[in-house]
């Protein structure tokens, strides 16, 4: 017993102060791909190397609409290797309330050889990563206290994930990220839960279990889709064994991109969801 206490005292506090301090990610970390839209010469090389179709384009009458979908992106950085107009930032707090907020589209006039002649329309100021965390943090306490008695209970469901997202979700309970300091707990039963944290893609074999878990929750309830696969089906997409992202089965309140999203990104998305709480 004394050894146990002694070890804890010797170890001290290892917990991060995030969200009061910035995310502790290095400069090498691959987060959101930043596209220099005005100087982007050609969407095709990046689209060709993108394994999930996160960078796509459609051509029509010498015009091109090029899209970056953070909900599909697995942050591999292959597009940045292939295209000098793209670089990988370390921005990881990308959660949004709307699926559309993860899509950034720009319109280009094309040359005869299919290169971009000029930018016609800037990417619609997608709200990707737009929510200021401080604002979220300030409202959080009041919201949780009034709505949920300072305690948000989360039930996690793996509806088809590769287990990568789970590795990071488990880290929220580690002493480093310690989600309980926000009054947020992971619970064993959906009947105790206010929020369903779902990783995907939703498989055909899990669809019913996911619906039943959701139905077992008391209202009001929130659903958060985690990871590229939870947001969109990710690299697995839609096939004979999957039914796509979480929103193809349940109404989703917040989307957290990433492959997997790191614990900071998960905290950001969960806090964002709580801030939005309006009941169902």
């Amino acid at each position, binding site marked *: 017993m004394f*050894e*146990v206490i002694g*070890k*804890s005292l010797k*170890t001290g506090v*290892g917990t991060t102060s995030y969200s009061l301090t910035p995310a502790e990610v*290095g400069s*090498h*970390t*691959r987060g959101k791909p930043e596209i220099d839209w005005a100087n982007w010469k050609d969407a095709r090389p990046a689209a060709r*190397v993108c*394994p999930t179709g996160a960078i796509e384009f459609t051509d029509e009458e010498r015009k091109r609409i090029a899209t970056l979908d953070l909900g599909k992106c*697995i*942050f*591999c*950085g292959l597009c940045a290797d292939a295209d000098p107009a793209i670089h*990988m930032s370390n921005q990881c707090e990308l959660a949004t309330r709307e699926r559309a907020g993860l899509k950034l589209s720009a319109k280009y006039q094309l040359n005869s050889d299919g290169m971009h002649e000029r930018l016609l329309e800037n990417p619609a100021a997608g709200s990707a990563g737009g929510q200021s965390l401080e604002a979220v943090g300030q409202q959080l306490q009041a919201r949780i206290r009034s709505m949920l008695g300072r305690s948000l209970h989360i039930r*996690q*469901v*793996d*509806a*088809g*994930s*590769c*287990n*990568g*997202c*789970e*590795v*990071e*979700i*488990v*880290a929220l*309970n*580690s*002493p*480093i990220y310690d989600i309980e300091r926000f009054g947020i707990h*992971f619970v*064993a*039963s*959906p009947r105790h839960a206010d929020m369903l944290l779902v990783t995907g*893609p939703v*498989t*055909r*074999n*899990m*669809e*019913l*279990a996911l619906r039943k*878990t959701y139905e077992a929750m008391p209202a009001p309830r929130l659903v958060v889709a985690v990871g590229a696969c939870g947001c969109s089906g*990710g*690299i*697995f997409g839609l*096939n*004979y*064994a*999957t039914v796509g992202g979480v929103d193809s089965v349940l109404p989703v309140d917040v989307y957290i991109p990433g*492959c*997997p999203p*790191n614990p900071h990104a998960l905290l950001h998305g969960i806090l964002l969801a709580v801030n939005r709480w309006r009941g169902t």
Partner: protein
Amino acid sequence: MNLLPDLRIVLDELTERFGARIEHAHAPQPNELYLHTKLELVGALCSAFYKKYQGRLAGVFAEDARAERDVFFVYYLYALDAAHGFVFVRVPVSSDNPELPSLTNAIHAVNWQEREIQDLFGIKLLGHPNPRRCVLHDDWPEVCPLRKDFDLHTKLPPFTGARHRFREVEGEGVFQVPVGPVHAGTIEPGHFLFSVAGEPVLYLQLRMFYVHKGIEKLFESLPIPHCVRLAESISGDSSFAHATAFCHAIERAAEVEAPPRARALRTLCLELERLYNHAADIGAICTDVAFVTAHMHAMRLKEAVLRVNELLTGNRLLRGMPCLGGVRFDFEDDQMRAVAKFVDDFEKEFKDLVELIRSHSGTRDRLETTGVLKPEVTRDLGIVGIAGRASGFDHDLRRDFPHAFYDQVRFSVPIFTEGDVQRRMVVRREELFQSLGIIRQVLEKLPAGPIQIKIEEVPSDRVALGYVEGWRGEIFHWIHTAPGNRLARCKVKDPSLQNWPALSEAILGNIIPDFPVVNKSFNLSYSGTDR
């Protein structure tokens, strides 16, 4: 044919014994021998490999070759650990009325794999003791997803939730405890049905494949470079090992070898993957016997590894690092120094944790003699990896089939015979210390030079086996290439597929409250199993 001397002996003896009935033999690699024969020889060859060559049936899978050859091919993969070679036996199965005599009665290890063939290819198993569906759940229509005429994007009718009929266990005082697929913790989905009499478990039935995502079919639809990213998503905590096994297979098919520096960096990353998973598992085993403090310390250690992963490769799970022909990122000197310092710090902290656990007699009481997997059961079920080594199966691909940089480093393979939860934890502990040693040796011997060889296009109609000893155990990726830099087939074998049935054996006679810790001591991948 360039063949390892020991495999040459095997081939010569088998040719002498079976003559022309072995129609063709070829060896694309010195340790990878293919024997083409007919169905009637499968039993005799199996018996020869087991009895004479200390082989084990490490995989059974099928391939739809009806377009080219008007048959299905079934492959039996034997690992001959002592001879350091792999032997594939390939047999045709008629396309009109596809039937396959089952080996499960003799080799229990292939029970699920044979049923997978039946589900995914529509090849009927003859004589299988339990030929029910496994990959496709009961409500699936009659489809054969891995047949070439089945479209990946086929839309099937919605799930109706037909109830699965479990085997009935009856008797006075016997009752059933169903658990899952949604579990109490943050883990993957699967269904466990316990039959108990009082507290002890009489029988445990597993129903898996809830996260079947059509991965093997998907491999056939993607250009080969994209497949690397798909391989990373087979089992999230083994991202690097799976993707490296895949790249290894492609490299063997293309007849190139990753440069020495790339192989060294692969070894480094594989060991980092082992570190974070073993540390997390040791902690989780402690938490399942209510020693949560140890778990918290283990989580700190795991986090430290994940941050090193991020520092080195830009991703905490080492994603994005693997690529065909080598690795994607080289490490600068300051990163190397950071790893060296990390190894020292980690070792010190981990020794403290080991001491902490050792000093806690209550933990040991709960772990010893709990969830025993007997060595003879291990042999029968072909259990590999950590669980195999804790139950007397002395094997490790890193030693027996050196890949990456493992022929350049020294390490030992911990083996125990007790097979309880304690030993599965101790295997992890010892492997973790060995990993630290391996990382130090890699840093010391790191060769200079390029980190990848460009592989533009892989020639078509090549077959190759890629293998990696992941932290759970052996991972195999078998590929058959198609024209246009694509794959005709990619068979993925995660050690979990092999090891799940061990859980049903290890839990017998234990009480349900010990199930979480027994399950955690195996810590098998659901996604890797279900694909």
